[in-house]
């Protein structure tokens, strides 16, 4: 049965490439919402980057961490985050039913789409979410051009 079906299939279909292209488009549409780039880097912490005219905003979820436990360094075109998430030890006599929260070290670096002014960078921790605000360099800011 299988043999017959294999041999019955024509080796070349004239619209095969077209079909493949359509399929590729359908798959990519499934993964990407318009105007939103989703890329899984697979490096802790996962980050979301947004921008407005003035700055870039980098956010990461780091529950249980304090601002001074995270090392942040910025250059003109990159940002590095590193630190260690610690989960305080409980009393010896406790009996764990579930342990899903993870501790450990992390270090991540990424480059920014356009130059920033690293000297004016700001960072804050609110409810376990780290927000780093990186003002764009003057040269990278969009400029309104007045028409005379």
């Amino acid at each position, binding site marked *: 049965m299988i043999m017959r079906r294999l041999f019955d299939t024509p080796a070349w279909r004239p619209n095969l490439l077209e079909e493949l292209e359509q399929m590729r488009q359908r798959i990519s549409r499934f993964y990407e919402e318009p*105007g*939103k*780039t*989703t*890329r*899984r*880097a*697979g*490096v*802790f*912490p*996962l*980050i*979301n*980057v*947004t*921008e*407005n*005219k003035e700055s*870039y*905003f980098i*956010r990461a*979820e*780091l*529950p*249980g*961490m*304090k601002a001074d436990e995270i090392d942040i360094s910025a250059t003109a075109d990159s940002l590095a985050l590193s630190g*260690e*998430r610690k*989960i305080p030890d*409980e*009393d010896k*006599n*406790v*009996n*764990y*039913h*579930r*342990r*899903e*929260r*993870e*501790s*450990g*070290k*992390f270090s991540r670096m990424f480059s920014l*789409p356009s130059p920033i002014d690293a000297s004016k960078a700001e960072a804050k*921790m*609110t*409810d*376990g*979410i780290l*927000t780093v605000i990186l003002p764009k360099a003057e040269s990278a800011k969009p400029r309104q051009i007045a028409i005379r």
Partner: protein
Amino acid sequence: MTRELQAKEKQELAASGEQTKPGPVFIPAADIFETDKAIVLLADIPGVKTKDLNIDLRDNTLTLEGEISPFEGADESAVLTEYDVGKYFRQFTLSEVIDQSKIDAKLTDGVLRLTLPKVEKATPRKISVTAG
């Protein structure tokens, strides 16, 4: 020994059809341990404020629900999105009887610590039977 932390996608709640509000719902990672006196639950719920967290205990079912209020400025547009933001929901069934009046919940830096004290067991009473 310190391990390297691995990036993990947040676990989405499967039964999202039961939610009335749109948007993703995630299951927070939790630690649960027990001592002689209490059951302690720790859950990672980054972004949830104290006022947006609901903890409910009835009929041995503990429900945690955390709403997220948007924290991005209106003029921000996404450049890269690696994680999704949404509310947190998780339910646990408790086998022990909990002293409801002594439940203690603390939310610090996106981590909830919930202490559920066990009801002190009634001291067994011996019933003496006298021959009549």
